């Protein structure tokens, strides 16, 4: 069987534990995120070209890739920072619209968040990774009427007003 003809059975691989770190530039108000596998996530401010990045927050998180158990095809998900459940707050948002799968389907949309939160560089997540994520999370669902849709975060209308729920461990490392 070739990798092209394989009906993949994806499994998580290369699971790494660390932190999802969010930074913001106070000059241009752009936001970026990255995954840190250091024991303590970096919090220092630094300059990068015209940007002055400041730490906005960090959350314990895990990263993984997908590998097919049948043909060994591997899909690295290096650029996926986290998944976020759409709470359907804005009908004009592209992520909201992705939930309209038609009658008979209970669709849950999760936005896959890339590193360039503000999309200032115009890039988001590669199609191969999104396709594999969709196949992985929809495989073997108990309810045949349930559909998980993983969509790229560039569909999101506004980072500032979005009410999505990010799948990260918010608060576990905070001291109140």
């Amino acid at each position, binding site marked *: 069987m070739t990798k092209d003809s394989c009906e993949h059975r994806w499994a998580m691989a290369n699971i790494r534990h660390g932190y999802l770190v969010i930074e913001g530039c106070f000059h241009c108000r752009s936001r970026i995120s990255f995954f840190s596998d250091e024991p303590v996530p970096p919090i220092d401010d630094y300059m990068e070209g015209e940007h002055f990045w400041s730490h906005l927050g960090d959350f*314990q998180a895990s990263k993984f890739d997908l590998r097919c158990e049948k043909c060994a095809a591997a899909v690295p998900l290096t650029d996926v920072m986290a998944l976020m459940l759409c709470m359907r707050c804005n009908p004009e948002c592209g992520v909201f619209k992705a939930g309209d799968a038609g009658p008979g389907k209970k669709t849950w949309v999760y936005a896959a968040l890339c590193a360039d939160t503000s999309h200032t560089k115009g890039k988001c997540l590669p199609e191969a990774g999104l396709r594999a994520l969709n196949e992985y*999370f929809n495989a073997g669902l*108990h309810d045949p009427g349930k559909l998980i849709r993983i969509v790229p975060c560039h569909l999101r209308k506004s980072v500032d007003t979005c009410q999505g*729920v990010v799948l990260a461990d918010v608060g576990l490392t905070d001291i109140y």
Partner: protein
Amino acid sequence: MKVSELVALGGFKVFNTYGDREIKGVYISDMVSDIIGISEGNLLVTLQTHKNLIAAANLVDVAAVVFTRGKAPADDVIALAAKAGIGLLGFEGDTWMLAKKLYESGVR
């Protein structure tokens, strides 16, 4: 074992109307980022009661969630779980007590 059979064992508080799913396994974790790796049909045992947990539980299609140590979710968390068809149960004892109870009841 089905979720209803688990509830019938006694000692559980039922927070919402649950789909009577078959419990295919048990996973104990308090980290959302850990949960997204489990397979469909698991009973998720946790101390976390926030919305992020339900978002993850829905993604991996758990059979139900049990909050231990008497923890209770907020109304908006219960509403989200109800929308997703995820049963939410409460257990007064700690996670170890629940693990023993599940094992002794034949859940593997």
